[in-house]
């Protein structure tokens, strides 16, 4: 019962990892469940709690929601795609 209720009031987004974020998490993407009203920043915090290694690049990456730049205050919606894009400097 509780979990059903939980499902109804939580939304699911997809988090995409690029470059260094991919190395640090060991994955290209993951699904993340958050409560409605969560901001991009809230999602990022949750991802970093899961992968503390990401802390090293949290201030130097581009956050994109559904392939568009997003301020950290944007509220995410169900099925949104949040991309963590740190810069690559190799060549």
């Amino acid at each position, binding site marked *: 019962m509780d979990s059903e209720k939980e499902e109804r009031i939580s939304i699911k987004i997809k988090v995409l990892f*690029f*470059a*260094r974020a*991919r*190395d640090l998490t060991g994955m*290209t993407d993951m699904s993340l469940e958050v409560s409605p009203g969560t901001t991009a920043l809230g999602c990022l915090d949750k991802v970093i709690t899961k992968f503390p290694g990401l802390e*090293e*690049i949290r*201030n*130097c990456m*581009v956050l*994109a929601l559904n*392939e*568009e*730049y997003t301020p950290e205050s944007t509220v995410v919606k169900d099925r949104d795609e949040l*991309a963590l*894009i*740190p*810069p*690559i*400097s*190799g*060549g």
Partner: protein
Amino acid sequence: MDSGGERLTASEIHTELASLQTAKAAIDERISTLESLLKNITTEDESETASSTPAAAETPLTGQLTADMIYRYSRHLLLPSFGVEAQSNLLNSSVLVIGAGGLGSPALLYLAACGFGRVGIVDHDVVELNNLHRQIIHTEAYIGRSKVESAAATCRAINSTVRIVEHKEAFRTSNALDIMKKYDIVVDATDNAPSRYMISDCCVVLGKPLISGAALGLEGQLTVYNYNGGPCYRCLFPTPPPTTACQRCADSGVLGVVPGIIGCLQALEAIKVAGAVGEPLSGRMLLLDALSARIRIVKIRGRSLQCEACGENAPMTEEQFRNFDYEKFTQSPLSTSPLKLDLLPEDARITSKEYYEKNIKGEAHVLIDVRPAHHYKIISLPNSLNIPLSSLEQRLSEISEALGRKEESASLYVVCRRGNDSQRAVQYLRGAGFNLAKDIIGGLESWAHDVDPKFPTY
């Protein structure tokens, strides 16, 4: 030469080859010198006669294009959306490519081929064998020689009508403004964080569009910065990544074709900007994921009013740029020379030669190789035990067991590729009770250099 009757021994052939190669190098050197002399004379002539009629052979038939140009660039001219106008724009434009490596190689090949009026190349490096899998502008014959010379020679061989300018120097705040001033468009094909900030700032100071590409591993990124009021590199990344997050191709590896693709796309964007056609990739970032064959284009933020380089309040000046310490800002060196840590006291280290001697004498010891497993698979020292640094903490018992199988006074040595991770490992091991652990200074590279020249390096 008819060598029908000749019977040469291998050593005679080697000798003659060596002498011919020396002579060839001298000739190449002389050609390059003469070309650059000629180039200067041409530049002077042009500036003197800028307003006078060009030489007869060069007389433009249509607009600015000579008969040779029309034939050479005919496939461009046939494109309705490109045509004479865009081609003329290219011919009147100049582009500076900073870095003649994995990105710069394909970019330069296309920029020279497509008919830019002038192409500048900046690099201070020499061609190495381990560059050739991706730096396709260079050939084996140029190993050990300047990348700029090598790239310039290839560009001239493809298109002798383009003026190729060689800048055989590192791009630094001291020379950046003077070099960049002479060009319309800048292509960032470098391989390190401080250079990326420096080049972007310099473009902001001088108002030049920047075609920025990057590649590492199996991923690539591409953006046009500082174009038509769009953002600069600092707008996007005001805070530089920490040193630990700055990876280099020399450490992390790169699939050769990945910078190849990004470098080609950089040439494409440079052509669009110079030709004034299409929509350059400004305000957007292209992300290439080679493994999954996906290209994503992400809309990025616009110019930041608070940006330290291009912001409203404090646009960067030439003087501020000259005095800015990019190495300090990014905590990483402009040159690509690898980091050299010095974490341990002298008595916690031995040289590769000392290790070799101890090994020959049969000293009881355990050798731990702390490189990642896929490095260990490339090459390793005999009888070494691979425990990657990242799993050292969890696998201490294996070290105790290995030591337990030896005599009581067995030594513990740690090796890695270059001698940095081995120091980190020894520091950790000493803290964990392995008080006699020592690292091999300079790692396997020093082994190859000082002990066994045949030992493979990578």
